[in-house]
């Protein structure tokens, strides 16, 4: 892997974002809206609890972490969509860049853009709603790590779908986190799900994060084993997502889709 080629993809994204309000604002606008909305809801809910249960770290923390995963996924897909919108596939894929370098560039771009969203989210949640991050202790880093890996996997699956089905398929990608969130047990325990949904939940790394997070808030002990499962699953999905992209790229090269991408199909 050559760093300059990875850097070229990241630099391109940097140029585009730094000169475009319409690309800068979405990095943090929706997460601020989510944090404010759920911050107010949790405050309101806290007024009804006599047991001293604090909804802020459970619900607002969950919203924040889920938004982080969504930002990571969109960081990958947005960088890819820039090539779709600019009809730049032929130029990019006719260079010596390897698929690992291209995907690596998208991932590094996502690290940068999702970090912006995370910093803004944490700042608003801490300053305005006093979200006590210390509650999660040393597990905050692993929580973010698992969600980051799964966000990357989702992003790579998303760009594989768009490369295979054409530009209009981007509308399949935006709702992906919303579709997965009921199964990921963001706001409720896995035990609250019906049996068939629990099976899917156990296959999703975020469900281990949110179960672990609620366990810490309820002082049920350190979620070491669930986090290890979540990490292993997330690493597995990143690998599978990369394999999927490689296969779709091979299909695109075999059929001529890259040269005629605007046609959406070569059949």
């Amino acid at each position, binding site marked *: 892997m*050559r760093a*300059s*080629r990875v*850097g*070229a993809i990241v*630099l*391109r994204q940097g*140029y*585009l974002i730094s000169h*475009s309000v319409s690309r800068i604002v979405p990095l943090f606008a929706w997460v601020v809206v989510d944090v404010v909305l759920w911050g107010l809801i949790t405050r309101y809910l806290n007024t009804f609890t006599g047991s001293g249960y604090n909804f802020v770290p459970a619900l607002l923390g969950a919203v924040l972490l889920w938004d982080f995963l969504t930002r990571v996924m969109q960081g990958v897909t947005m960088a890819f969509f*820039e090539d779709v919108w*600019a*009809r*730049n596939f*032929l*130029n*990019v*894929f*006719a*260079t*010596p*860049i*390897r698929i690992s370098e291209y995907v690596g560039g998208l991932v590094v771009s996502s690290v940068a853009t999702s970090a912006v969203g995370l910093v803004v989210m944490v700042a608003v949640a801490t300053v305005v709603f006093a979200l006590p991050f210390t509650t999660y202790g040393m597990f905050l880093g692993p929580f973010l790590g698992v969600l980051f890996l799964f966000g990357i996997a989702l992003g790579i699956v998303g760009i594989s779908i768009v490369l295979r089905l054409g530009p209009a398929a981007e509308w399949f990608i935006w709702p992906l986190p919303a579709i997965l969130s009921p199964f990921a047990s963001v706001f409720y325990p896995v035990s609250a799900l019906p049996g068939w949904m629990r099976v899917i939940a156990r296959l999703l790394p975020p469900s281990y994060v949110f179960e672990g997070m609620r366990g810490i808030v309820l002082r049920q002990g350190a979620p070491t084993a669930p986090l290890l499962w979540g990490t292993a699953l997330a690493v597995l999905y990143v690998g599978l997502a990369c394999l999927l992209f490689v296969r779709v790229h*091979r299909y695109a*090269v*075999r*059929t*001529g889709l*890259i*040269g005629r991408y605007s046609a959406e199909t*070569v*059949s």
Partner: protein
Amino acid sequence: MRPAVLDVRDLRKAYGRTVAVDGVSFEVHQGEILGLLGPNGAGKTTTINMVLGVLAPDAGTIGIEGLDLAARRSDAIERTNFAAVYAPLPGNLTVEQNLRIFGMLYGVAGLKERIGELLATYDLERFRRTRCGVLSSGEQTRVSLAKAMLNRPRLLLLDEPTASLDPATAREVRARIREAAARGTGGVLWTSHNMYEVAEVCDRVLFLSKGRILLAGDPKALPGEHGKANLEELFITVAREPLTLEEGAA
């Protein structure tokens, strides 16, 4: 004869039942400009896309400076570059930004100085910080050509490179590409529908028809060999009556 920078052997590509390229073999040598001619749909762009590694052949091999494209794509493509009228650079980046990004992708050493040289060569200095999308089509073509020269390619692929240029600029561009080829370090594969240009620029031409090489030879001598007054007449015959030439060749 100088060594080949491009060696294409028995190349074949079909889209479903439509055979776009059918057993094509040719070489491009150092210092040579080879014209790939033919009517629309003859298989020129399909051939170029296969040489660029963005389209996999069904059969045949492509060697770039002795490197098998199928086995060592990245190393082989690092020696190439291309400009095509249908592949403009992203319009939402400036000329300089585009050249920097593609220079990094091609691993160009001394990139800042190289960009400066190319901006001067292609008269683009005043557009350095202008977004490509607001340039005229001719200016965008010059940017694409500057990008194609970034890595001093050993194999330059040009698909109708002067299609959007005014005659004066087209002549300058042709002269620069000829100069680059004359230095002898690289070869050029050039497609064009402008037969005057082809006759002026190309050392050798291949006429493609229905995915096969119908004729090959010196663009100045070839029309006379087939009883035609000039290359344009020969082109029209290839497009409309290829069988008469096939019979003649047989």
